[in-house]
């Protein structure tokens, strides 16, 4: 395996087209996923639930609301959050460097934390620190996923990873499971919805998003859709050589996420951090170790 040097052979046009498709499709897909999520959740709670398009109604409504801000700046950080989330998606779906995409996502995350810090509200501030704890729990596994995929496919570039002819999952079952564990954190689902939750019943009111109102909150929601699509894309990579299986697994994984969301109370941060790191260490790093030993 030699160091992958960018050889510039990929087609610029196709990258641009992929990015444009992503820009348009991702929010639609993300919104629909979130709508389906709400319906399935409702059914699990023996309710009927809202229409599938509900997330879109919500966002459109939010755009029509008054733009309440606490100070001049805090809305702009949310915008940055959105921009960088989209950027990370573009890097990913444009076939770019996976590490870079993840780093862009981290930057996006930092911006949302900053937005909360900027808002000068105690609940948002505590939410911000909790979000940091969530990042601390989830980030290692995300990056490790990139490393693991590299070890199997020999490239950090998504465009090359999907061209692989072996299925990463077969080599990386542990990494895959740990990633799904971490996915719950990234999707802000129970039991890891510590920093902000979809429903209002939380000790931090709305945590991080307490001060976002109207359009700012809409940006946040849209960014969350992009984020969801990105994360599911990451899951897909494990089955990239069999696209149909990949899509099925993505659907399955999301269903499991909904199930987990519904059968758990919220963890406290200590348990989150410990369990996430343990999962990363045992399943993720352990998997790499095995790979390393077996390759001899």
């Amino acid at each position, binding site marked *: 395996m030699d160091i992958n040097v960018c050889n510039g052979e990929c087609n610029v046009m196709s990258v641009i087209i992929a990015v444009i498709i992503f820009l348009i499709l991702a929010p639609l897909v993300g919104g629909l996923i979130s709508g389906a999520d709400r319906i399935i*959740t409702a059914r*699990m*709670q*023996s*309710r009927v639930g809202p229409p599938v398009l509900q997330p879109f109604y919500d966002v459109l409504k939010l755009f029509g609301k008054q733009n309440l801000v606490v100070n001049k700046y805090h809305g702009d950080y949310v915008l940055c959050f959105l921009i960088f989330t989209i950027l990370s998606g573009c890097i990913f779906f444009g076939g770019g460097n996976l590490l870079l995409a993840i780093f862009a996502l981290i930057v996006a995350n930092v911006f949302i934390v900053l937005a909360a810090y900027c808002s000068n509200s*105690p*609940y948002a501030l*505590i939410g911000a620190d909790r979000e940091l704890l969530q990042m601390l729990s989830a980030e290692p596994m995300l990056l490790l996923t990139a490393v693991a995929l590299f070890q199997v496919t020999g490239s950090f570039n998504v465009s090359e990873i999907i061209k692989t002819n072996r299925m990463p999952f077969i080599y990386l079952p542990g990494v895959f499971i740990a990633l799904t564990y971490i996915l719950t954190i990234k999707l802000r689902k*129970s*039991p890891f*919805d*510590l920093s902000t*939750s979809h*429903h*209002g*019943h*939380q*000790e*931090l*009111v709305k945590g991080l998003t307490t001060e976002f109102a109207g359009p700012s909150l809409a940006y946040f929601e849209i960014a969350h859709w992009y984020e969801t699509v990105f994360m599911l894309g990451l899951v897909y990579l494990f089955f990239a050589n069999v696209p149909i299986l990949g899509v099925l697994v993505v659907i399955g994984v999301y269903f499991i996420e909904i199930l987990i969301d*519904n*059968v*758990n*109370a*919220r*963890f*406290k*941060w200590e*348990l989150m951090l410990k369990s996430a790191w343990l999962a990363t260490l045992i399943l993720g790093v352990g998997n790499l170790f095995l790979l390393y030993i077996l390759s001899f």
Partner: protein
Amino acid sequence: MANRTIIPFGPQHPVLPEPIHLDLVLEDEKVVEAIPNVGFVHRGLELLCQKKSFQDMVLVAERICGICSLIHGVGFVQGIEKVMNLEVPERALFLRVFWGELSRIHSHILWLGLAADAIGFESLFMHSWRVREMVLDIFEETTGGRVIFDAVKVGGVRKDISKETFTRIMKQLDKVEEEYKQIAEVFIKDFTIIHRWSNVGVLSKENAAKLGAVGPTLRASGIKSDTRMLKYGAYEKIDFEPIVEHTCDCYARSLVRVKEVYQSFDIIRQCYNKISEGEIETKVTGFPTGEFFSRVEQPRGEVIYYVKGNGTKFLDRFRVRTPTFANIPPLLQMLAGCDLADVPAIIISIDPCISCTER
């Protein structure tokens, strides 16, 4: 102090069903200090006894709180009946117990839901309340109200339940119990529930007694005390033992309630078997003279009605000491040193009901 996080918790706060305020002083997420502030629901309704007749005061008593409104009525009415030396028909007494225990079931399941919600367990919340709706249906069928029942009156009860209806309701209750069993299992076994509740908000046996805790809060700290053991009303003819837990934490408090629901189902069955036909009220003549401290057990613990009549239709004093009032000092003790995330769980664990605390 400048180094600590200080946040206002309430009065408006999504995990608080009712307005109460705490100044929380935190270090990281540890609660160092919690100073309560009450009075958001204080209406001063005890003074209504100077404007409403003692009979209308039953309606007021039932609206002290909408969760166990019926038992409030019972507590008050028993005080008046003692003062006026009224002989209440046995059927009425049994019906009071029936509705009272049904209230307990509805109240406890409501609590279980809220408690699950306080730790972010939304679907369990939903399922608990789904089961609770079945109980409310029975209430609506028998009293006409879903949460405010207006079923008791001085000297008896207002509504009777016909034989067939009663039998049908008992069957319905079996179904409710079956459904309840499923969610009760979750409260007993679930991993995250245990993670969030065990060893959280510990109130030692000693402190529980010293600080005057009542109801499930007290029983979860290993003290066997239940005002129903005074055997007031038809409880005289009913067998039961107070339910006690010994781990003294939020989990124990939930367990006590989980088990009390089963106990209430049992008491209702005893009621059904022991109830006899007859009148449901006696005629009330004259006005109350004298005083009495009437004590009954609510879902949240012992409630005390002090009534003092002076021979007119207006009472001299109408006073309620509600269970939550007695549980607030223990609550403050439980809060010290917990995590911020535990604050809602602990507050809910005493099943606070502020409306009757502040009246």
